[in-house]
């Protein structure tokens, strides 16, 4: 059904996207918390910074990543010298690029859910002896879970589809950084590659649709526990 190259692109895409979401999710929750609840000078600036990848051309994001995380960039150099970690032109780098690009989408969804949580419930938890972390884990997080889930799914889908930042920062190396959109792009560029491009495009649509359905089912299940029967 799928050629080895196609299966490889699919598998790699899933790995890149999963890793991207896994690492950015805790940070996105933290950023959403700071934006929804924090009060500090420069908050507007921070808000703008988080949302920057949404408005910048993806190629520019990839270029900026190269400047910072490339082997000669300050962070990239530090990581390589001290931990032997190389991000540019690796699959880990592809994950970083997709994580940065999908971060604002994730933060938005989580922030909306967090803002919808009744703070009166947190006050009630305080009077019952729950400290800050305890309150977050037992009250706030469970109540905003549908939003976190939605954010993760949107970010996963965006990670699967990210093209510009990945190709700029991680390049288009089959088996290493060639995710589905990059493979589709290459197939289109190749003579007689139309059939392969069509199959991969269909695959992308199927995955995106499955993701949406899954998140809908999960969100409904979570809501069922809090809403009227």
């Amino acid at each position: 059904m799928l050629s080895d190259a196609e299966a490889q692109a699919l598998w790699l895409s899933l790995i890149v996207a999963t890793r991207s979401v896994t690492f950015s999710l805790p940070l996105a929750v933290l950023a959403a918390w700071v934006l929804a609840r924090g009060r500090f000078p420069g908050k507007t600036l921070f808000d703008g910074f988080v949302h920057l990848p949404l408005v910048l051309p993806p190629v520019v994001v990839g270029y900026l990543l190269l400047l910072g995380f490339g082997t000669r960039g300050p962070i990239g150099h530090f990581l390589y010298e001290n931990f032997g970690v190389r991000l540019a032109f690796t699959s880990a780098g592809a994950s970083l690029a997709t994580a940065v690009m999908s971060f604002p989408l994730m933060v938005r969804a989580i922030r909306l859910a967090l803002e919808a949580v009744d703070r009166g419930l947190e006050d009630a938890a305080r009077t019952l002896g729950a400290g800050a972390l305890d309150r977050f884990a037992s009250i706030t997080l469970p109540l905003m879970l549908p939003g976190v889930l939605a954010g993760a799914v949107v970010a996963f889908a965006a990670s699967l589809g990210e093209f510009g930042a990945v190709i700029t920062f991680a390049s288009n190396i089959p088996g290493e950084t060639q995710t589905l959109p990059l493979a589709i792009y290459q197939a289109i560029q190749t003579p007689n590659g139309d059939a392969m491009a069509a199959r991969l495009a269909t695959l992308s649509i199927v995955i995106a649709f499955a993701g949406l359905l899954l998140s809908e089912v999960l969100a409904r299940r979570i809501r069922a526990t809090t809403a009227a029967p």
Partner: protein
Amino acid sequence: MIEVQVKKTLGAFTLDAAFACGAGVTALFGRSGAGKSTIVKAVAGLVRPDGGRVQVGDTTFFDAARRINVATERRGVGVVFQDGRLFPHMTVRRNLRYGYDRARGEKRVTFEAVTDVLGISSLLERRPVSLSGGERQRVAVGRALLSQPRLLLMDEPLASLDEVRKAELLPYFEKLNTEFRIPILYVSHAIDEVMRLASDVVLIDEGRVVAAGSLADVTSRIDLPPAAESFGSGAILECRVESHDASRGLTNLATALGPVKLALIERPLGSRLSIRIAARDVAIASERPTKISVQNIFDGKVIELRSLPNHIVRLKVAVGGGYLLSEITAEAAARLDLKPGLQVVALVKSVAIGR
């Protein structure tokens, strides 16, 4: 002993209230916007006062001068909010256990006792959304009690309920203080709730304490400021059920005023209850009238008179070993030439006596 002294400025509103309360049920009474809820939040630690002191027993929760401000979660003060605030993602059981599991030290209030007294044992596996308003408030009270509080704050817990539900809940609330021996600060703007539940009352108006003391003392004061008018002055009498006259539909009570007749009530002979005779329901005559419908006619002596706004005079009349309050028009007071020391007759309709 609970001592509260709270100063807080919120926009144009200034709260500056100080009072103390004991181990019983103290009602914090006042109109909406008088500052009652802010006081409750300050005691719970949910609002930081600009100044003052909050002390429960020998523990200081807040002292502006000594820079003490204990975090809410370490105060051990139970709060029942007006809107219940049950955790929607947990069952009733998990809601009840939330504070219980986090309480330190000896657990004096047990799960069984609470579910029993509040009648919520059958609701444990339900979710808050499926509960009625009354059930929800009972669970909220149970949850607060199970956190082993040293003080229970109840912030208008019945305000969001209709009259039927209120009547259904009051008997449960009446048992709390005696059953669990936890001091209760009960916020309300409904006089009937205060009458049923409280032993002491603190009247709040526009951020200030205008009167404080035992319920009987405060209600018997004829000098309550106009701001506290909604409290409605009247006499509270401790009574014993003497006899029932079913054929005439009357119950006879023994009180400090002497016998009092009221419309038949279903209480066993010899049982005790308190009744309230509102000042507005007491008429004054200079001699005993004949051929009158009024069942309760008392000989008494005027002790004190006070003019209120709107041409009303309030007076205190000594009757037997007790007293009555009456409010009449200034014109009537002048016509009868009322003054302290004058012998008068006080008339109280049986149907006007409230419980």
